[in-house]
């Protein structure tokens, strides 16, 4: 079973995503800020990381950078979650190695789990992370 790390500081959001991913049958690991996220990413070795952009201590983009620099975590697919619908953020995230950029308010939770599922399916089919 795929393990999803959700790095999200807002409890409303984190609880919601935790519920839906659990409901969809994923293992879910939660982190409340960037630092915890980095720790959890190293420790838990998730299949995929859902990463919020605006967070205290270390923001999502900074954490993404660190994850991509660390050989242990650099091949883990990262999906950015945000409510900042800015193009620039999306482009920055994608150049830094994120596989997708999801604006939270645009989608139902179920749609997000579907997207994650298809990303994982792609990885599984083509280049399964080692």
């Amino acid at each position, binding site marked *: 079973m795929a393990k999803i790390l959700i790095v999200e500081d807002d409890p*409303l*959001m984190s609880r*919601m995503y935790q*519920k839906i991913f659990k409901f969809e049958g994923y293992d879910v690991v939660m982190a409340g800020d960037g630092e915890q996220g980095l720790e959890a990413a190293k420790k838990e070795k998730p299949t995929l990381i859902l990463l919020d952009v605006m967070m205290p201590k270390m923001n999502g983009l900074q954490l993404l950078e660190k994850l991509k620099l660390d050989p242990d975590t650099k091949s883990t697919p990262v999906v950015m979650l945000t409510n900042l619908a800015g*193009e620039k953020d999306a482009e920055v995230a994608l150049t830094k190695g994120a596989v997708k950029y999801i604006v939270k308010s645009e989608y*139902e*939770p*179920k749609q997000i789990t579907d997207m994650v599922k298809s990303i994982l399916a792609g990885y599984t089919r083509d280049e399964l992370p080692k």
Partner: protein
Amino acid sequence: MRNEAWKTNLLKYIIAIGAVTLISFAFVYFRQGNYFVALVEGITFIAMVGAFFLAQRGRYLQSAAIGWLGVFVVVTTLLVTGGIGGIGIVWWSLVPVISFIMFGTLGGAIATSFGVLVLVSVALLTGLGSTQFYFDAVEIRQVAILVTVLGSIMFYFEKISGNAREEALSKSKELEDSKRDLEFNVRELGKEKVTQDKVRKAIINILEDTKEIDTQLKVEKSNVENKVIERTKELAEEKVKLVASINSMSHAYVLVDLNGSVVLFNNKLIEYFGVKNNWTLDLIQENLGGKLDIKKMFLEVSGQLKNFFVNEVGVSGKYYDVHMSPINLEKNKIIGVLLMIGDITEEKMVERSRNEFFSIASHELRTPLTAIRGNTSMIKQMYADKLTDSDLSEMIDDIHDSSIRLIGIVNDFLNLSRLEMGKIEFKKESFDIAQLVNEVVAEVDDKNDAVEVTVKTPKPEQIFVVGDRDRTKEVAINLVGNAIKYSEKGEVKLTFEVINESVNVFVADQGKGIAAENQNLLFRKFQQAESSIITRDTTKSTGLGLYISKLLMDGMGGKVWLEKSMLGEGSVFAFSLPLAKR
């Protein structure tokens, strides 16, 4: 002169005739053997020839003298010898000739007296019965005839002299006439004098008038002077008002002449940048942070009559707007350049906080809204079996729909504020508009079953345009979404048209349509095509959709417009983008 010539000629002819006669008689007497008489005749002939030539040269006195010399010789001979038969007295006949020629002169008087004396002497001697002097009766007749002839000539001469007198008389008449003329002239002059008097009077009048005019002029002048003083006072007041206005302006005001020297400035300039000794464009440029090339602006404004407006110049935490424009007196003629600088720091702060508020509010609003949307959605999904109560299910649906609508509104606001702040950057990418339209229709369609959405496949099937794909998609979603929203039923038809390097996409619906008078409300902020704010359909939109679509299309070089609309028949909206160059 004519008379003189006549006399001269007569004299010449008489002497000539006398000379010819003398030489003829001298010749006759010489043949008869009367040698003494022939000699006298000959001497007299020589005297006559001399007289003739002298007369010919105009020397009358000498000529007459020589003539008389001849006569004297003859007469003396006669007196001494007692006369020679056949000659003698006849020669005396020249005396009256000479007399008349010398008429009016002393010579003439002596000649006449001498002639008379000789005649009287001869007459006396003859009367006394002197036999010593012999005179032939024929000769006496000859003398009488000669004297008669000469007398006639003299009479004629006298007549001519009379003519001369008449001439003199007529001359005196002429003089009379000229005298009359003169008198007339004098009279006329008298009249002239009257006229002159009148003129003089007129001149005096004029002089008096001039005096009056002078007085009037003086009055006028003083009036004008008063007016000037008044006007000057008014102008001064105006100036005070102007200066006061300039000083109380909210902007720094700088008047620059055509040489680029600061001529006038107001207190605001000092308020902004402090007291300076000598304001120059360089100094102002320096005080504005040096990045803005004020001098170059000045050259373009004064040279090309451009207007400049720089809406934001930041200097150490302050913001200014800078306006520069030519001061025109008439078209294309300027007297200087006006530079205005405004402190817009406060507005900038307000604007920034407003934008930040928008951005933060939007973000902060969206998170809880997303939670509402997500959770209601999950309730419906995860607890579908527990939602047996249809009212409860409907309530959860409503909460869910509300959150979606709210998210839409917040998105509109956020987009709008970013668009209006110019913070959205548009990509220039090439994409297939037909594919995009199909994608949009697939996403938007299934929401209203009563309306059928169709896309007419264009030819060619792929049309590549240049623009920002995501923004174009927003516009397409807006137009197709509106078409569905405002149609109760019927068809929404999308068609393509390639025209002049660009492609038009038409979205035609069969909805209620828009009244002509409301059509110009479209594409404006917060406007729905409804006449009144009360009748606006708030369930359907904020009224920002078309406005945002317009800003988006403008931003990427496209257009969006209402092609046509009829109440009850539906509307056709359209947007266009430039074709991609192959």
